[in-house]
């Protein structure tokens, strides 16, 4: 396993999402290449130095706190968060960079934690859903999700909330079209998109108000 510390190539989801490509293609199968190519782009540039196969010590900075652990180099950031650190807000659903249920924020950008190795995340600032609220005090995006009932079973919700937060950081004043483009990388089976659309627009207002009053 090769490792390159502290630097990642384009891992983040851009405001423009893969779903826009996917839904446009005529055959399900024919869209595979796009997804695969993009997944390929998430592989770090190789550099000399081989790690593993045994566990290696790493320190991850999560929600402002360092966590030291030993992981096999093949362990994803998502598995490290969930299975080793009991940070279970991010979910594993597709396990291959399609659904967004595992979204976390890495150096200010939303990334699919299932598409990133834990060892690659060393040296980066990682924010998970757990880092966005304290007991009894919800993040404005979460409050907006509650108000607009943008959740049913709730399994996609933490990923959606994190993606919305990261989206609003970059697009503080979005239109509905911006929301539909920017959040196309998160999927929900229960069908909460109508609520999510409203929630993001409300959260944008609340956050702007907060900044203005600052």
């Amino acid at each position: 396993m090769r490792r390159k510390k502290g630097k990642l190539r384009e891992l983040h989801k851009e405001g423009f999402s893969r779903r826009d490509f996917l839904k446009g293609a005529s055959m399900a199968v024919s869209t595979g290449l796009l997804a695969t190519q993009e997944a390929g782009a998430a592989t770090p540039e190789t550099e000399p130095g081989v790690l593993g196969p045994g566990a290696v010590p790493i320190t991850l900075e999560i929600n402002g706190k360092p966590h030291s652990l030993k992981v096999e180099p093949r362990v994803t950031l998502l598995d490290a968060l969930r299975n080793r650190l009991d940070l279970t807000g991010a979910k594993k659903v597709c396990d291959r960079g399609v659904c967004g249920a595992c979204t976390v924020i890495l150096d200010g950008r939303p990334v699919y934690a299932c598409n990133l190795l834990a060892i690659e995340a060393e040296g980066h600032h990682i924010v998970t859903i757990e880092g966005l609220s304290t007991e009894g005090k919800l993040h404005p995006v979460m409050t907006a999700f509650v108000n607009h009932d943008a959740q049913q079973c709730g399994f996609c919700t933490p990923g959606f909330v994190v993606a919305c937060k990261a989206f609003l950081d970059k697009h503080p004043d979005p239109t509905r079209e911006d929301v539909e483009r920017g959040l196309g990388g998160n999927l929900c089976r229960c069908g909460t998109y109508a609520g999510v659309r409203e929630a993001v627009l409300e959260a944008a207002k609340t956050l702007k108000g907060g900044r203005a009053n600052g």
Partner: protein
Amino acid sequence: MAKCKYDWPEASDRRLIGKRINRIDGPTKSSGRAKYTYDINLPGLLVAKIYRSPYAHAKITAIDTSEAEKLPGVKTVRIIQGVGKEIQWAGDEIVAVAAVSEDIADDAVRKIKVEFEQLPHFVHEEDLQQAGDHAKEAGGEKGGDPDKAFSDPDVVISEGFYGIPTITHCCLEAHGNVAEWTGANLRTYSSTQNVSGLPGQIGQALREQGVNVPDNNIETICNYVGGGFGSKFSPDRWGIEVAKLAKAAGKPVKLMLDRNMEMEVAGARPSGYAQIKVAAKKDGTIVAWDSHSWGTGGPAGTTMPPLPYVLNIPNKITRHTSISTNTGPGRAWRAPNHPQAALLTMCALDDLAAKLNMDPVEFFSKNADLAGERAEVYRQELRKAAELIDWQKNWHPRGDKSAGTIKRGLGLSLHTWGGRGHNSNCNVTIHPDGSVEVTLGSQDLGTGTRTVIAVVAAETLGLPVEAIRVNIGDSKFPSSGASGGSTTVGGVSASTRRGSVDALQQLLAVVAPSLGVPADQLVAVDGHIQAKGDAAKKLTWKEACAKLQVKTLQVTGKNPGQCALGSSGVGGVQIADVSVDTETGLVKIHKMVAAQDCGLIIDLKTAESQCYGAMIMGITYALFEEKVMDRATGRMLNNNMEFYKLAGIGDIGELVVHMMTGPGYDERGTIGLGEPPVISPGAAISNAVANALGVRVPTLPITPDKVLAALEKGGAA
């Protein structure tokens, strides 16, 4: 007539029921604190994975697990299906492995060697002619005199082929369980729709397989479940296996299905295809129906959808052929057999309306009497839905004649469902400090069950919703039904109402002497217990409960029980407005509207969410979903989420939900809503596409290739 004591409050007395109330577990979910089965981490937890059949039909001739067993970190290897077993679908479970980590369990599975004798498989049922021995006659019905009705020279006849393929449930939380033994007691954390029912099923299966554990030693816990949609009623074979692995390893074991397994074997809505002939008089009165339907739900085949759907056509003949295939077994999917029936019926009737040159709203309104006692509900819903989509202005006869390559159209569909409340028991507990709990072995699939329970108790006790603590998700709680068939809201709201009314009565009896007012002259309002008509005589809720001193008040509420609090049978109409690009074949949803009744609504906000969610799920199966099987290998080709597509946030257009409430609806009491709104979208969208193009795309999903093929065929004809 004397009013029954449990009856729902009159409209003027309802503070909470029927209002838009936020779901009570919303903050827990949106902050990521909700713990699903998949999130359970226990000390020493092992992870299990499964070796599954690569073949759709084969006999196992040899199994060698020795290399897997030798792998460091592997704790237990168990053969699920041994040598000699005949496998009936690709992906069926053969060997289970428990190891100290998921990665090691995966490594071990890769080291298992199984040999098979391959047998011929059959996985494609759309063309009935090719089914051979896989096809079996599966009943039919005859009513009136269809031969005579069809041969009447004055009728207009329309004939067509329609279909809806097998889709998978694709729950975002895959199926799975964690099993933990403590001595002779088994606890399972299960992703389930059936908390109270699971221990009995697990116990029976374990005992049949030689593990002697009585049901009362088994506890199932499920506080949150990431989707079920009808696929999570049973522990499944993997749920029994995980208990056996945990017993063998002496450690807790987690076994959640990988995504590919979830897609291949843990969810399948049976397909439905039909050749249909319908006839109407020239004035649009429908007179005759003739259908030959078929479909598959895996090895067991299918039963006939309720055809013709909603409308009881006087002269009819139906025939169904069940086709067994080597595909993962069918499971109940929201409103079993109804989306199929709606697609087949509403598309055939829409084609007939087009042949008659009739406006479909007029056509269905005219024939609504065939819906029997709900005729008037359908007419009201047709009017409402038509108004919301601006039908008058936007509808045109078949085939958008405007210039350009983008064609626009409207289409509608009707549906029906039962939804009577299931059996439910709950404990309503009032503590001397004034805190209140409602406790029952139910589950909240995201439908708002917790919230409904809290709203009913709060309304009854005169308290705010936040004052009620709802405990669900544990089989040791009073038993409550499985969440299927839209039965939960009726069951839990009725048991909670009865329990809360009785608990309040007991509290009033305790409080009465200190207020010097007879108990039957006291009421609970706005956090107080007070004399009817004399607000000066009152105690706060807390003061009142303090009169209980050290005695906690606990009352059981039941459904069914005295006073009817719910009923069964709803309608529902949906209309879709779409555009189709005739060059690319892409369908885009502009707007969809739903007019839906469900009796008395407890929480309007989560009820509307059910409809929005169902319409989005419907858009997804209308445009994207299909379990694609490979003819050559018999395997599912799109067993992942990049090739099995779900709609995204940009695919849904504008959605409008109108709940039918008020007189005529509220007095029916509660009726379930999980199924009805998911039934019509496929037919409504298909009809809208036909209206736009002037030709029918016969089967779902309406993908660009099918649109282009239909245009080509339509043009050539």
